[in-house]
């Protein structure tokens, strides 16, 4: 089964909105399903450390982030976004309806992360 198919199954069966695996070095989507508009380049820059936070809270919260990101979850009024940075140089991103359980969202991300990277 191709990785795209694995993402399709995870999204459709899990009730998510879309998901993708992104190569961190090239920012290229290496696998995914319904991933258009899933994540903005500016968010990737900030998440992956290409750009440092410069907003108002840096004044009260000290210097730059201490380490690379591992997991990010942002829940809004319409959707929740789950991101997991993998040691193998990939970022798994999954968008889910806000009504979906956060535990289920992470379970889907971990299943996708566990899938082997195809050459």
């Amino acid at each position: 089964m191709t990785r795209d198919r694995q993402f399709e199954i995870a999204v459709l069966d899990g009730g998510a909105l879309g998901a993708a695996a992104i190569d961190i070095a090239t920012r290229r989507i290496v696998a995914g399903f319904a991933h258009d508009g899933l994540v903005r380049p500016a968010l990737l820059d900030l998440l992956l450390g290409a750009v440092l936070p410069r907003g108002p809270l840096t004044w009260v919260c000290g210097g730059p982030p201490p380490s690379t990101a591992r997991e990010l979850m942002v829940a809004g009024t319409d959707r929740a976004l789950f991101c997991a940075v993998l040691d193998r140089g990939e970022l798994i991103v999954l968008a889910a309806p806000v009504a979906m359980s956060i535990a289920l969202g992470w379970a889907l991300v971990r299943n996708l992360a566990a899938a082997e990277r195809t050459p």
Partner: protein
Amino acid sequence: MKLDAETPAPAPVIVIADRDAEIRESVRGFMSARGYCVEPAADADAAAELLRGGDIDVLISELALRGADGTDLLSLARTWAPSTRRIAIAADVTSRDRDAALRHGAVRVLAKPLSLLELADAIGLARDCADGLHGWMHRMSLIDVLQMYHLAGQSLVLHVRGDIEGAIALRRGELVDAECRGRAGMPALVELLAVKRGQLETSALDHRRRSLSGPFDHVLLDGLRALDETRRAAGPAANATPAVNGWFDEPDARGPLDRDALARWLGEHAPGAGVWRIDPDGAADGAAAGAGIERLDPPGPHPERELAGPPGSLSWAYELAELADPTWTRVELTSGDSAVALIRVSGLLIAFARLVSGEAMLRRFQVESMRLLRWLTDHLEDGR
């Protein structure tokens, strides 16, 4: 040591010390049929001789024995045979008897007339206590205890006693079954997670029913989330409250943040975590030191306080959330050994942070942050 498949394990040895020959014989018959080797003793001296003579797995001692007080025998057993687990039985168990027996290391204190099934359960528990500590603890939440047994990879049944009674079974640290007031599975688990006070008791895992499936943290988080939804649905503002994440849409319905109550809750449920109330507008570059941020976790020297100040990843999490979704209500970010959560509720911005080392601590952080969200929602909704 691994036993050969063809080498049968030796039968566990029980000593039953009781004045009543009928009880000794009925215990011998009942437990022998279950694969135990049962040695009867009519008085304390005979029981002591057996204890000195060999490896006894479980000592069952009447508290009113001839020759010595039963608690003396329990005490002697602790000295002579520390690996022997002890069960006390008595005709009229007073609270003083019970306390004395437990102080002398009894795993269970059973009342006469003796139920042989109850005794078999107690023996099963006693054998299960071959390793590890056992005893009384208090100020534990059910979630704390579940996480403890999960991390230890234990197989046992956790009984909840009190106004609401039920049981949760773990097999190798995973939640496999819950039952409460005739319900099973997730509905039972949700009902038990809502219990705020009562007693907990453990017993050996003795059944194979499976009503829960999935990794521990997923099952627990689903249970907590279902509990949140149940509470919100039952609350007075249920109809006005969106299903998830939009509950700060009606700030007028909530009261101000009670810092003292929150500090008490944090000291009890999330010790060591750092919690701040943040005002991004007041934290602009050039503002006075400390402007725009207020620490809310219990003040003063705290032995478990992990973070001297807000971690740098807090501003990172805030900016990521603003970029990802301007309508964000909750964000969690893990980086290196720190995890931060930001919660927007009722017009407040609350930051929650903890040092995390490993997956178990990360899952604990996620459960705590969800519980903090629940606390904030409940208390601000109540107007307290």
